[in-house]
């Protein structure tokens, strides 16, 4: 088997990996914003709950979290697990984990904003929601983009952890193929795939950064 054949064989898995990646971003970024709101809430109870949540998400392995999300409903509530749930569990597990990391990045960005921006917006009559979405958030995005890029690149590689609940993404395919063919080539193909994927991600994020370079803070 040559490398092209291997890549073709792994193509389905690659699509699954990309899907995990995309869905996780779609869910974890907005969720991260919500988590930040809780983390920065004036209510000490909400703040503490969110702090504990973030602490657990960052303090335990993602692989373990995936296992809990997947097997938890069965052991805790004796739910019967449908085969579809496997994919859903992967997305839930990744999303709640990444939301915690994104939330902390958002928080660092938001608290780095000078208070004068809020004051100017208040004087001009913007309400709180307008102030956040039109004045604060666009500037926060510029400030945190490099940190977000780091996180997104890590996510690309972390998708391989879906194998821990036997979800057939690209890397589990590569491992199976390597065992069957008694060859290292599937791993080489996997490495090339991740590298190219991340290269694309980094390039796209760089474009975003350049686009936001039209002003200085």
């Amino acid at each position, binding site marked *: 088997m040559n490398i092209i054949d291997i890549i073709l064989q792994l193509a389905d898995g690659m699509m699954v990996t990309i899907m995990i990646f995309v869905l996780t971003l779609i869910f974890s970024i907005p969720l991260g914003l919500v988590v930040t709101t809780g983390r920065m809430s004036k209510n000490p109870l909400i703040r503490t709950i969110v702090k504990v949540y973030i602490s657990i998400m960052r303090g335990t392995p993602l692989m373990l979290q995936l296992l809990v999300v997947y097997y938890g409903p069965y052991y805790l509530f004796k739910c019967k697990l449908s085969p579809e749930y496997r994919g859903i569990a992967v997305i839930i597990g990744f999303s709640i984990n990444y939301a915690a990391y994104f939330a902390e990045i958002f928080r660092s960005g938001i608290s780095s904003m000078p208070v004068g*921006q809020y004051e100017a917006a208040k*004087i*001009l009559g913007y309400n709180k929601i*307008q102030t956040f979405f*039109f*004045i604060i958030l666009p500037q926060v995005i*510029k400030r945190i983009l490099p940190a977000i890029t780091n996180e997104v690149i890590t996510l690309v590689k972390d998708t391989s952890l879906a194998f821990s609940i036997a979800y057939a993404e690209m890397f589990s395919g590569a491992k199976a193929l390597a065992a069957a063919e008694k060859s290292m080539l599937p791993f080489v193909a996997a490495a090339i795939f991740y590298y190219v994927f991340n290269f694309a991600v980094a390039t796209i994020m760089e474009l975003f950064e350049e686009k936001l370079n039209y*002003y*200085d803070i």
Partner: protein
Amino acid sequence: MSVLEMNHIKKSFDGNEILKDISFKVDEGDVISIIGPSGSGKSTLLRCATFLETIDDGELSYLGEQVVGSQDGKAVYGEKAKIKKAMECFGLVFQNFNLFPHYSVLKNIIDAPIRVQKRKKEEVISEARELLKKMGLEGREDAYPCQLSGGQQQRVSIARALALKPKILFFDEPTSALDPELTIEILKVIKELAKEKMTMVIVTHEMDFAKNVSSKMIFMDKGLIVEETTPEEMFNSTNKRTMEFLGKYKNVK
């Protein structure tokens, strides 16, 4: 009817009394300069008048409508709608401009009138261009704040405040972040506004300018108004503290 009336305003920060008992009013067309040493409470007074700080005790009215009342030695703020209405009366120009860096000059000026006041875009844009012309910033509407000098940024922020058509405009040390040359740019603009009978309250350290432009001057020290009078009388004051403060200034000259 006064545009702004403040009565017996008190404000402390962590037990530190910054405003002890301040009363003053601003009538239409007044240009009032507030002078005084650093820490005398000038800026805090403006921040209380503009709802950036909450008053501990005292009364605050805009256009004859009381927004903050005093009850049992505590300030009681009116309902949200009332505060919102009061906030539409005034504009504030900050010491460090606080322009929105991600918006172009034009967008800085037109965004609030369009988004907040829901006015027609074409109308707001043509008014904004007029304002820019007045501020000597013709042709800079597509620039971003970071591409402008401090003086230009401050002029944009004055235009931004004027675009909302306030009844009264507050200036919180508008030239303190600028070098002498740029300071003159801003003072010229404020003088121009005074000629047009814009009601203004200016916290400033520019004594000559204050003397020149104001219809009334207020000298504050240690959270109290020491003197409130015309510029001529202020500079010929026989009050010991006023003489001391202005005397130091005269000595330098």
